[in-house]
């Protein structure tokens, strides 16, 4: 399984009569950005929840770097190498930008049981945190309180925290959500360079970003993957055009 980093096999999840995830098998290969698109209510969030461990599937499995992580919780999957970003920024708003990335570095170190030394003086954690901030272009904002950041900066910080985990795979839930054209372009450029560090499973509504970034696209409709292929294949797939892209394509 060395050619697949993150994989789901036959995932199913129902809420009552609603089959939110219906036999979903997707694979994330090294060096690729694999986008998942689909109309509202297609089951994208439910799928992300099962991949990241906040929702248990009714059946099926999730593999990360060849290891079955289906039975593991969110924290264990993060330790195993899954770096996720949230659709709605999950940041400690009262803390500084630096503290938010330090939290990621601390998670990576898996050593939070230290009660005395100041975390801000921890050279190893700081170095990793600073590298992540520089990467997303927030190095100058490190001392600011997160609540003061613009929406676009918060989206960048989301990515920075995931970067500190040095994950084997990224799972990004609508990283462009709420961004204007300029912010979206900046983040697109950033993600473009990230794929060689770790492949990205990208759930995204912004079609410009998806078509610019994705190596492959899977289309999720009513809980089922109706097509997987390259950007051009998806653009020309008639079922996809009917079900999702409509007049847009």
């Amino acid at each position, binding site marked *: 399984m060395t050619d697949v980093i993150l994989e789901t096999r036959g995932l199913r999840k129902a809420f009552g009569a609603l089959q939110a995830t219906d036999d979903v098998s997707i694979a994330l290969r090294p060096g690729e950005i694999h986008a998942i698109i689909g109309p509202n209510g297609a089951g994208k969030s439910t799928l992300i929840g099962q991949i990241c461990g906040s929702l248990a599937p009714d059946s099926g499995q999730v593999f990360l770097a060849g290891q079955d992580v289906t039975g593991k919780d969110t*924290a*264990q999957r993060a*330790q195993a190498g899954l770096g996720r970003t*949230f659709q709605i920024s*999950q*940041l*400690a708003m009262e*803390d500084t930008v630096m503290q938010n990335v330090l939290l990621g570095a601390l998670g990576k170190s898996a050593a939070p049981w230290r009660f005395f030394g100041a975390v801000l003086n921890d050279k190893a954690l700081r170095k990793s945190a600073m590298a992540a901030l520089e990467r997303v272009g927030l190095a100058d904002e490190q001392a600011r*309180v997160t609540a003061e950041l613009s929406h676009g900066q918060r989206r960048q910080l989301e990515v920075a*925290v995931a970067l500190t985990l040095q994950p084997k795979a990224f799972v990004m839930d609508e990283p462009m959500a709420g961004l204007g054209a300029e912010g979206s372009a900046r983040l697109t450029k950033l993600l473009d360079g990230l794929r060689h560090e770790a492949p990205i499973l990208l759930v995204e509504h912004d079609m410009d970003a998806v078509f610019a970034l994705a190596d492959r696209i899977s289309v999720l409709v009513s809980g089922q993957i109706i097509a997987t292929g390259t950007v051009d294949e998806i653009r020309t797939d008639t079922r996809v055009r009917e079900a999702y892209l409509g007049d847009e394509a």
Partner: protein
Amino acid sequence: MTRESYVNLACLAGLILIPLWAHVSDEPFTITLATRAVILALAALGLNIALGIGGLVSFGHAVFFGIGGYAMGILAHHAQNYTPIAEWPFLIEGTKSMPIIWLLATVVSGIVAFLIGLLSLRTTGVYFIMITLAFGQMLFFFSISWAEYGGEDGLAIYVRNGFPGLNTLVPLQFYGLCLAILLLALAFQWRLAKSPFGLALNAARQVPNRVKAVGLNPFKLQLVAFTISGMITGLAGALFADLNRFVSPTMFSWQLSGEFIVFIIIGGTARLFGPVIGAALFVIIEHVLGGISDYWHIWFGFLLLGIVLFGKGGVIGLLAGGAKAHD
């Protein structure tokens, strides 16, 4: 230095100078009041680690205060009556030594806090408040029905327990001992708040989902914080019983759990010296207003209302301005 550090320093100076002045001008009762304030501050400081940093509004912290009190009461009771606590499987005798009492009080409080945390931290919000309250009430009624150790009447200890090299019956010496412990606890909390653990705990309060996503377990972080918190409040309970030379079920009462929360709110939630200022104000107001009217709680209630409505960061917030993310 921030304005908050000046407030803290002024507070520290008061803790040292007021009892010294009382000693010089021969006002032992003032020293006793100050000792009471310091011990209550220590109890609330314990709670502040769970509540202030961890966001865990425990309405049952009197459990640990009471356990600390009864640890002292039971050990000293057996020592003063020359009866063993247990003869089987091996002989356990009582003691009048403060260090041993403190050790037992913190260890037992820690174990109980761990067990209560294990169950109650599965809930959040109002449910957490209610379940911690329920544990508090359980122990309260247990202590009332425990006839061997005085039941409702409690246990009186005739002579204050000893500490090597000190005469704890001298008010200023006992005060110094309590103050030293409070300062150690303050130093501990100061370091803790800036430590890797403090960062993670603080984040677990604000964004538990983020903490999970970076591979840390908020439940474990909060459980450890709750345990540390209970240990400190338990130690305060042992000191409180020694101050009064008396322990009774009131040390388990839910009113006391509420008062600890009130100290923190008055002083300023998650502020290092918040519990100290809160407890000191409470003791002063209790003494002054209590001398005027039996119904002083009404006026105290108005004060609390005022602070909650107008001073969001408590007294420290009023004096030193809004909380700053630590640098």
